């Protein structure tokens, strides 16, 4: 097992390095160089060269990358151009909010997704199965940013039940687990949960149908085990894969929350990215994307290892 974990880590390292190269190059994809955005328009060529030298942009790219990576390893993601504050502190504040939202959404999506999936898998080709499949297709086809707007129209603008935007009544940037703040997370979390709900219900349906068709289920029934007893066996067999899909969905939601966070003005990483893009705050953009992508890579690793621990049959080569 330990060997397997080590193997996975060895496999992930080049991917993580690749991600860092991508994030580094991202800034250089932009038209001009990262300093163009902050330099006054009337700066002379000499002043520009001086600034470039001061920030190290006059060195060859591989050396710049080396210096940048060295700093990243020491927790220095540079400073935000817009606020002047360290990127790391801005990102870590936002990551907390995004993580809470994505976790709640994943939990809702997982609960309903497994429910629909089990129902559909148990009663294949029944009306219930058709309904569950329809819910799954709707979940993966709906533009979630539009769904968010529709939710706001229904529950905030028309019914006035829930607040349309923000993370709390005081307008402060942080969500806290108390009844007042709870009202603010309901709409964005439900909106966000629709995607994992569709994907998890599709996965679970296929898993359950697959397991029910296996011989050991027949054997269990033949020896007279109650339907509830059989159900428990099905759950144990479906759990590792279903949980793995849930883990990955959490990562997708955390990285893909920008549109929903923009709709609900949720003070998370998506909101931060949006601000970074429009203020052309490239260090902030780079730092946020690096943190989110690395989190996703690590999450993949953890999910993979946990899944193999739960079910040793699925070791990857």
């Amino acid at each position: 097992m330990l060997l397997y974990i080590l193997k996975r880590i060895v496999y992930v390292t080049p991917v993580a390095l690749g991600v860092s190269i991508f994030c580094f190059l991202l800034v250089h994809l932009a038209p001009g160089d990262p300093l163009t955005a902050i330099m006054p328009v009337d700066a002379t060529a000499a002043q520009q060269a001086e600034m470039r030298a001061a920030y190290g942009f006059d060195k060859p790219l591989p050396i710049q990358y080396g210096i940048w990576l060295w700093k990243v390893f020491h927790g220095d993601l540079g400073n935000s151009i817009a606020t002047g504050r360290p990127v790391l502190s801005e990102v870590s504040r936002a990551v907390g909010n995004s993580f809470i939202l994505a976790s709640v959404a994943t939990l809702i999506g997982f609960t309903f997704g497994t429910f629909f999936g089990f129902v559909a898998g148990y009663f294949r080709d029944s009306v219930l199965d058709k309904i569950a499949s329809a819910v799954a297709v709707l979940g993966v086809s709906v533009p979630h940013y539009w769904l968010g707007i529709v939710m706001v129209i229904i529950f905030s603008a028309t019914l006035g039940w829930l607040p349309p935007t923000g993370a709390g009544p005081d307008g402060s940037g942080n969500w806290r687990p108390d009844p007042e703040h709870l009202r603010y997370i309901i709409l964005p979390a439900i909106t966000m949960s629709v995607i994992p709900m569709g994907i998890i219900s599709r996965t679970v349906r296929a898993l359950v149908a697959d397991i029910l068709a296996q011989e050991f289920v027949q054997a269990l029934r033949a020896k007279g085990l109650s339907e509830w007893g059989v159900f428990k066996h099905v759950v144990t067999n479906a759990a590792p894969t279903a949980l793995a899909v849930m883990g990955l969905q959490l990562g997708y939601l955390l990285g893909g929350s920008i549109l929903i966070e923009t709709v609900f003005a949720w003070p998370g990483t998506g909101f931060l990215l949006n601000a970074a893009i429009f203020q052309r705050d490239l260090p902030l953009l780079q730092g946020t994307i690096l943190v989110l992508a690395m989190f996703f890579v690590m999450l993949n690793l953890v999910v993979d290892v946990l899944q193999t621990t739960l079910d040793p049959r699925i070791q990857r080569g």
Partner: protein
Amino acid sequence: MSAIVDARIALPKIKASRGYWASVGHRLMRDPVAMVALAIILLIVLAAIFAPFVAPADPFRGSMLRRLKPIGFPGYPLGADELGRDMLTRLIYGGRLSLFIGVMPVLLAFCIGSGIGVFAGYVGGRINTVVMRVIDVFFAFPSVLLAIALSGALGAGILNSIVSLTIVFIPQIARVSEAVTTQIRTRDYVEAARVSGASAFTIVRVHVLGNVLGPVFVYATSLISVSMILASGLSFLGLGVKPPEPEWGLMLNTLRTAIYTQPLVAALPGAMIFITSISFNLFSDGLRSAMEVKQ
């Protein structure tokens, strides 16, 4: 007596066997869900192409006196937007850009990605490992994040948004076509072709492409729905199409201020994205099951 003999002779007619694609088309025709989805897609595409003839008004001309009118207002069947422009007209015209920026990336990624995948899969060995490892890096990003990172760095604009989404889909298509190619490369008929002296180019053209492009094409059609949502999402964020062009994602964004006054009108552009996206998804599902030959 003779009647009985005749009945024996009149054996059930043997149907002329269809080619593979003809039988796929036949199965697809009998799938009502896929056919309805296809009809909706065709309707939206045709309306977009013939927009100047179909649309009742000018998509750019508005009137500040008639801004934000409800659905069914005289002269405005689907209401008027925040600048008093006819919503129905703008939704019809909006299909042009929305479909273009949604479908183009998948088309481009299909050409480039399947090229990369077939090359890596056919060559195999160390080159394959290197190519696939580079592709793995792109899988370390959720699609939405990758699309926004790229177009955020490149800057707003239709071209940049298409480039970003193409880069998002290339690795996904390349991975699928590499997997299929690797499978096919070891088949006996490829081996037989090689032994009989066929050049690598001929083998790839006849045996590999013929077998790889089908499944990869189906996979690519399933990406159109995602691509439509992402492309309009980029416009919604202000990273794609710029005003005053009609595009569903952008319209959804500019109408956000109207959710308290004209909620139904404000929700219309998103509904168009939803209808198009779900139609592509259902059609792609139908196509996939029509292509799965169970023997």
